[in-house]
């Protein structure tokens, strides 16, 4: 065993506990304590993963990274713990902006901007649209409660813990001390995409090496579109005297 495992376990338990206290369960008594506990757990995780790159010259980049990552993670926690769905959606938007910032910080311009266009610009706006349509008269109590809060918090925290463990490389190499300092060697492919003419390289990769995946994804979306049209058509009966100009 190694020294990272107990800290990951402690942080996971803390995270589960904190999330459980923060989730909307009909009482707000423990929210402050929950926030502190969650923050402590997140700090432990951050401290563990900051061991990945201990070089001191990169402190400015580290500062930017941890600011962006902090915004992303805290906004994500707020997304699940706010009882007002409108606020949850806004926090989700902030989390997406943080993710896009992380992508930009790594030089993946297209991914960063596409995250904003697709998720923040289209999907989340649709969420807000539905939220506005669904509750014009205020919120119902049963919508503002978290169902199965304990299990939800626990499973979320366990997933985060396992992810951190795998990022630390413990599954491959249990001995932390002998682990190489920089575990992420940039593969050739990635540097090629990140070069100048970034979008052109990305497009070339997508439409040559990953062509099948792109086509399958496109077909899936087309099927969803056809399904949506079919469902909408079944509901809408033709009315001859109606207002439709179509």
């Amino acid at each position, binding site marked *: 065993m190694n020294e990272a495992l107990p800290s990951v376990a402690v942080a996971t338990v803390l995270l589960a506990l904190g999330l459980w206290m923060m989730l909307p369960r009909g009482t707000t008594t423990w929210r402050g304590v929950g926030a502190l506990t969650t923050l402590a757990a997140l700090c432990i995780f951050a401290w563990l993963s900051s061991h990945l790159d201990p070089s*001191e*010259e990169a*402190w*400015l980049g580290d500062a930017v990274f941890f600011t962006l990552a902090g915004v992303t993670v805290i906004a994500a926690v707020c997304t699940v713990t706010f009882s007002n769905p*409108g*606020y949850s959606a*806004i926090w989700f*938007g902030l989390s997406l902006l943080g993710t*896009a910032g992380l992508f930009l910080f790594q030089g993946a*311009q*297209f991914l960063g*901007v*596409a995250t*904003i*266009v697709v998720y*923040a*610009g*289209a999907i989340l*706006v*649709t969420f*807000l*649209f539905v939220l*506005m*349509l669904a509750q*014009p008269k205020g919120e119902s109590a049963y919508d503002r409660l978290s169902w199965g809060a304990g299990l939800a918090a626990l499973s979320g925290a366990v997933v985060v813990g396992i992810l951190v463990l795998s990022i630390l490389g413990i599954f491959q190499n249990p001995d932390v001390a002998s682990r190489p300092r920089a575990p992420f060697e940039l593969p050739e492919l990635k540097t090629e995409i990140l070069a*100048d*003419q*970034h*979008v*052109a390289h990305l497009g070339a990769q997508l439409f040559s090496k990953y062509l099948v995946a792109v086509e399958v994804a496109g077909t899936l979306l087309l099927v969803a579109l056809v399904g949506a049209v079919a469902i909408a058509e079944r509901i809408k*009966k033709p*009315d*001859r*005297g*109606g*207002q439709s*100009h*179509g």
Partner: protein
Amino acid sequence: MSIDWQSLMVPLIVPVVKIAVLLFALMTAAAYLVLLERWIAAWVQDRLGPNRVGIPLTKIKMFGLGQPLADGLKFIFKEEYTPAHVDKALYILAPVVILSAALAIFAVIPFGDVLPIEVPGVEGPIAMVEAPGVDVGMIYVFAMSSIAVYGVILGGWASNNKYSFLGGLRSSAQLIAYEIPLGLGILGVVLAAGSLRLEEIINGQAASGQWNAFSQPLGLMVFLIASFAEAARLPFDLPECEQELIGGYHTEYAGMKLLLFLIAEFLHMVVAAFLIVILFFGGWHFWGMEVGPDVTVTWPMAIVRIAVLLAKVMAVIVFFMLVRWSWPRFRFDQLMNLAWKVMLPLGIVNLIAVACVVEFAHVRELEGGVASPWIAVGVGWVVALVAWFLAGRYAPLHTDNRPRLEVLRAPDFEPETALARQREAALR
């Protein structure tokens, strides 16, 4: 842990100066564009318009050039009233979001070509863009304008007012719908230029001397109409139409917060004008100018380029303002029909035509020949005319307000049964 502050600071100064100049110019421009809009409105409606306010405390009138200052002061000194029934955090957040998104768009928009200034620590001449070399410039513009939707939606939702709410709903539906024709119009240009960088798109048009407006007239039409809708200018100003919704999503706003919304709207129009000029009218290019990658830009050349670009942008803005007083507002179903049943197919037709032309040129290049640039122009105009004719002939009558005679004259038609059927359908 020693940091070379000097090498860190010098490259920082250039963007900071650029941002400061740009912010100042944009805010002033927005104020004076309001004055211009009022002058044009007065001219169209045969009035005098604002012509009194000049230098304060004197009798000098200066054609009313002091009006924006007076307007600004009035906004600042207005009572900042926050109604008790609003969701306060989101109510304050909404104008901030919309203005910062509108300003952030300008980070990738070139205001000219380059300035021949030598700055130690910075390579080459200074590009007239806040963020030069962003490889995804066009998508970035798209992303930031989709963030601006949040300001509208949040303003409408947080105001807790039915008029605001309807305005927010309308605007989110409208902006999502028109993003698609807007994107299709952009895609044609991007395909022809082979790059998402706005600077590259201008350079491509300057090199061939052939603006995209000539080779892609259909794309220009689609993009122009979609950008009117995205900027919520008059034929499409459903989100805030005064006669129906008081003020739409900013009904409950007053003072500086309202001003932030209004400035953001004006900035959206300015962005739309810049994009139209850059994508379709050659940016800073005009025939007779020296162009090419090996031409060193001198000061007079740089200034002429900036002047040409801004003159074109100004012309487009005046066009926007004239359209405002020339066209009545659409109804909402007409707006949606226009987006999905006319603009979307036209945009796809344009994209396919451009793709064919580009592929043809590519094949010619592989064979060793050169495709004449006039082929693109010819194909573009033929496709545009045919598609426009077909759309006008066969598209649904989205602008027709007359009663549908074939429905009224149908043998089994009775108004009461039709109403009952409608009600039944609604209940189902």
